[in-house]
């Protein structure tokens, strides 16, 4: 009986001793989760692949977008030749676009395109000044495809794929 009392007392003191540690751990966990939520919110905020509204294509697969942006598919399903629009090399949206689409870093993307360009096989996507220019480019060209970091505020373009997680 005495032993039990001692053990209960020990447990209680251990409980009180551990509480601040637990609190600190819980607080850390929250912070980690919060940070994770914030960073995953950034990582998973989707990118919108857009085409001109005159383009009959309504939905693309991830593979379609990879094929178009990696120079392996040159035309839409209706046979029209594609004009692929891109953002400047230093653009954060561009870095995220290729990372989500292919898992490749900017250097790996450049390596990939160096291979295609310097064998004369195909031309790289056409860089636009910024997302506004990208939207305008797609609005005015039925053969164009582009991507944006927010839902397009224009009825002249159509979202054909939402890119929201990695390969």
């Amino acid at each position, binding site marked *: 009986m005495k032993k039990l009392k001692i053990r209960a007392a020990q447990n209680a003191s251990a409980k009180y001793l551990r509480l601040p540690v637990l609190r600190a751990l819980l607080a850390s966990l929250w912070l980690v989760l919060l940070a994770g939520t914030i960073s995953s919110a950034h990582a998973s905020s989707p990118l919108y692949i857009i085409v001109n509204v005159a383009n009959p294509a309504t939905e693309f697969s991830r593979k379609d977008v990879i094929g178009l942006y990696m120079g392996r598919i*040159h035309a839409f399903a209706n046979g029209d030749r594609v004009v692929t629009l891109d953002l400047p090399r230093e653009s954060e949206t561009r870095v995220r676009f290729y990372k989500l689409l*292919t898992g*490749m870093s*900017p250097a790996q993307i450049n390596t990939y395109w*160096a291979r295609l360009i*310097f064998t004369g096989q195909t031309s790289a996507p056409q*860089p636009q000044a910024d997302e506004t220019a990208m939207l305008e480019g797609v609005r005015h060209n039925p053969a164009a495809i582009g991507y944006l970091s927010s839902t397009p505020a224009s009825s002249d373009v159509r979202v054909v794929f939402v890119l929201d997680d990695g390969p």
Partner: protein
Amino acid sequence: MLSIKKLCAGIGIGLASCGAARAAVIFNGFGQIIVGTTLDNSRPMNVRTPAYAYSADPSFLSESLFALQTTATLSDTLSAVAQIVASGVPGEKDTSGSVTPGNFQPEFSWAYLHGELDNQWSVNLGRQRLPLYRYSGYLQVGVAYPWIRPPSSVYSTPINNFDGVLLNGDFSPGDWFLHPQFFYGGFNGNALISATPVSIKLNNLGGAVIEATYANWLTLRAEFGGGQLTFHTALPDQIIDDCLNATACATLPAPYNTLNIFTPLPAAADVLRSDNKWITYTSAAFELNRYNFVLIGEINEQRIIGGSYLANYRNYYIGAGYQFGRLLPMLTYSRGRAKNSDPNSLNIVTADITAGNPFGASDPRILVVQGLFAQISTIDDYYEFSLRYDLTATVALKLDYTYYASPADPAIFTAQGFQHAQIVSGGVAFSF
């Protein structure tokens, strides 16, 4: 990438004078500055690529180069592509010790028309890269691969360009992207073999390539090709034409170098002469790039059809690395093996020499011909540790340590003997 507008603005020309181009000309470029040296004062003698012509004196000209590619859009489906490459040519020290300074020599590597036939097929017509290897098309584009140079034992063909037609396809069945290529053409010119210009002609050069990519992380490649090779170098020509098919042999001491001492042997000379010999070429390659692991391998085989003193080659490499953020360390092993394509032709020629000659089996020309066959068989091994660091998206720093050895195996070859070297090189590769 640099548009003609930017170029014109950059060099101070009014846009009106550049108007004709209407931004339809695109300039791309690449280059690298590489410094290298051997560590143990040795210089590999039979190494296959001139890139390895390093000595104990550090040199930055052996592998440094600068290249500019222009793509002029002629119509919606037609463009003209030209590439000028200025390669470093190291200076040379003569026997008196005086040094000829090195420099950069520009040359038109490619010039061809590119046409889109439909949405799947395009065609290149003109002088262009011969698609022999996985990295053929961008052999000199340092930023396009992990090493300072693609593994030398495989990337050893002295000819990299051809004149002809190349058909490119792009298909995307299921989860795969397929890239078939068909080529036909020829080459006629000089190529550097062991730093000596050699006249080489390849007729009826043709082949088929298929490259398949799965989900951006697995690439497989296979190729079969062939052509008719005409190959002339000083010493074999002297042996074949001046010894076998003549009455005297200039390469032998007196009295064999005097007139009317031998019976000419045109049939034996024909066996050895490298005129329009058919060669075949097969290769396979893979690249696996997943979870930051990189695994690359390639093997190829060149075979001579019919009697010849020339060698068949079987070359391969395997490389493994891990991408730590911007840093890619890799270990690569490669072996190049050359072996007489038809040792039996030596027996045929020897029998021809022996029969009906005043010297019989002691005819000294037998030794000369044996020497021609013996010098062909070689083994070259390369053990390589390389580092690539992506400074920016378009600039990579590279370091490389290579241990080269040709194992001495008298059962395989007799003339080369054991040679080895340690080569350290490093530099920067870029594209724009």
